[in-house]
């Protein structure tokens, strides 16, 4: 099979042509911050804007999720310009995130914490103002809770749900700052359409969708 070779952060890597740079990096244990990427989803949504990298010969940073790897590509995930953008994007997200790690079910298993560590950035932004929305929490599903105040609008749950149920339980509503991940006609998640497969909770990178006490299907359960 035909392959291409490229360099990421000095590491020589071979990949299949046409593969997305973000995937290739992650598969080769090179972490690039990301929230909206899903392994099996063919088209990137490119909405979280956190996977900016620098490519030799290119002037501006680009999102790794939208770039096809090509032969001889030289990538720097640690470039100053790219990291400045990633930090800015991350800060924007955190400025509108109901930060409360100590009481959050995702604590220790949260992509936002991981990104903060990677960027050596604080979870609390000082530069921007806190803009929280204080939306109601949806507790109606027997298995899990949805706290929109922790949602980063990555769309992962929306996508996996559509893979399972054609019409999907989830979707986005409203525009601009008011955009929110919600259910059709804002009905409670617990209503009949949900199959309780809870895959949405598995893919949620934050504590927005989280299992209720004792409902996490853990390995110990069998």
């Amino acid at each position, binding site marked *: 099979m035909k392959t291409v070779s490229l360099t990421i952060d000095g590491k020589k890597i071979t990949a299949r042509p046409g593969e997305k740079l973000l995937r290739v990096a992650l598969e080769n244990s090179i972490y690039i911050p990301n929230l909206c990427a899903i392994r099996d989803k063919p088209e990137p949504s490119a*909405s979280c804007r956190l996977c900016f990298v620098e490519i030799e010969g290119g002037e501006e940073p680009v999102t790794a999720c939208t770039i096809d790897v090509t032969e001889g590509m030289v990538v720097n995930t640690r470039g100053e310009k790219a990291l400045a953008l990633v930090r800015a994007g991350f800060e924007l997200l955190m400025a509108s995130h109901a930060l409360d790690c100590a009481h959050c079910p995702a604590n220790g298993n949260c992509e936002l914490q991981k990104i903060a560590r990677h960027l050596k950035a604080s979870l609390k932004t000082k530069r921007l103002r806190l803009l929280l929305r204080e939306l109601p929490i949806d507790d109606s599903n027997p298995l899990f809770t949805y706290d929109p105040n922790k949602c980063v609008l990555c769309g992962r749950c929306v996508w996996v749900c559509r893979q399972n149920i054609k019409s999907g339980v989830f979707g986005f509503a409203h525009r601009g700052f008011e*955009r929110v991940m919600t259910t059709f006609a804002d009905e409670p998640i617990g209503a009949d359409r949900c199959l309780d497969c809870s895959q949405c909770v598995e893919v949620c990178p934050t504590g927005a969708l989280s299992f209720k006490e004792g409902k996490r299907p853990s390995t110990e359960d069998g």
Partner: protein
Amino acid sequence: MKVIKQTTAAAAFHEIKERAESHWRELWHDKPVIMVGTATCGRAAGAPDVLQAFRDEVKKRKLDCPVIEVGCMGHCYAEPIVIISKPGYPPICYGYVNPVIAERLVKEFILGDNPCPEFVIGALEANDLLPSFDDFPRAQHEQKIILKNCGHIDPTEIEHYIAGGGYNALAKTLGTKPEDIVEEVKRSGLRGRGGAGFPVGRKWQYCREAPGRTKYIICNADEGDPGAFMDRSILESDPHSVIEGMIIAGYAIGARYGYIYIRAEYPLAVERIQIALKQAKKLNLLGNHILGSSFNFDIILFHGSGAFVCGEATALAASIEGKPGTPRPKPPRMTAAGLFGKPTVVNNVKTLAFIPLIIRNGTEWFTGTGTKNSPGTAVFALAGKIVNTGLVEVPMGTTLRQIIFEVGSGIPKGKKFKAVQIGGPSGGCLPESALDLPVDFDSLQEVGAIMGSGGMVVLDEDDCMVEIARYFLEFTQRESCGKCTFCRLGTKQMLEVLNDFTMGKGAMEDIDSLERLAGEVKAGSLCGLGQTAPNPILTTLRYFRDEYEAHIELGKCPALMCQHLIAYYILPDKCERSCDACVGSCTVEAISPNKKRIKVIDQTQCVKCGTCLAACPPQYNAIVKLSPPSEVPAK
């Protein structure tokens, strides 16, 4: 073989054209014709009543005088506009017409021989009797190419368009190889009028050469910029020019279907396109075997949802597909995988309206106007503090000064020019020092603005630049689709900061962090909306930073516009004892006379509505705005 095909189309068209021309001659033969502008701008000013008045009058007096509806001539400030063409006279354009004037015009001009000069704006041709448009200073700069028909033909009569040379280009196209049409458009150097100025020929070529049999051409008529209405005007006034452009584009790229994506808020444009499509189909200019050739093409009208972001090409395609109208990352380019995943060309209304003219008149004719890298004309919608609001078409390379002061007749009420906002919410605010800039795609980019849709809002000394930036950002924040982080959250953050500035809150460092955030949103956003949303901020910071500083450091709005930073004050030595016009005008009873019968505003009561300022008689002119409010003398 090729030659036979060519003659079929040409011959078929020849017949249509002959008929149209003879009907057109008949219309004008030996009788007066009254043309009433009934595009949206005319209607808003009362054109339907004027139209009815003319029709009633003509009927009552049993005159042989057709009364026809035409589109918008661009002189929107003077609507309702009527053109009367009477044998022995040059065609005369009347402005601010009402039913009473209509009656007089019929009585005195159609029946008599008094052209009523008091209502005339200008004659359309040079003559000894009346001033003509050619004598106006604006005529020196205006050059109507795509607006040429607007206001001069009945948009619901395909024969009017044909009689003026319309569909000639299509007949010619059908006898030419598609590649050659693409080549011709490429050579013309035509750039897209939807905002970014992408070379049209190159876009067509990408699409034509993309693999696959199914391709689409989409006409982008979303026009969501506040204050922009040139696309609406063209669709209402000369729909066939756009349709012909689309058919030619379809032929060139190899499309069987085209879509017109039109704002649902444009009912009149929708109606006129529907009529136009029907008429084109009837004459076999659309549909199967167009003009007897082997080319089949149809146009589907799609009503947009009215979201600004749906004007972005990928969001627009998603919207037609029935998906949420949010942009997707590029690549793949639309010309590789667009509507329903097929190679697609998206072109603006104006772009397509240029096509028939270029094919008909040739590349040299087209490149004879405009600048080297931006050939042709630019259409602007003049609005704001300018005497002649309306549509103008000038060659690319005309300076802002010429457009604003000569074509637009400058700033009303003797006020001073301050800035011009070009390109709507994605554009920038340019100061006086930029007035001599020859306007084209590239020059605007260099100074931080963009051509955008062609909205041009003129601002004077009473406009606060911080407030202007805030106003546009409020729009983009509301219209952001919210999909991507920078645009969704960054515009909101910036809006909050600007809201504070207009209230005098904030620190000087906030200006720098605003500028930095603006740069980040520009670089980080997914689509053009977010990438350009910071432009109003960045340009006002670049050219009017002192105004930001005054707001923050002094709590002062130099333009006296920001409500929180001004106070109304009655100058004691100007106030007339015997007058109390302001007292009664105040809605919250904040004004009362003091012992000397001088009126005083209770600042704690005042809601800063400004009614009193308007109520104070001009001979006293005793009420002023002060900023900061602490300027008001204590007692």
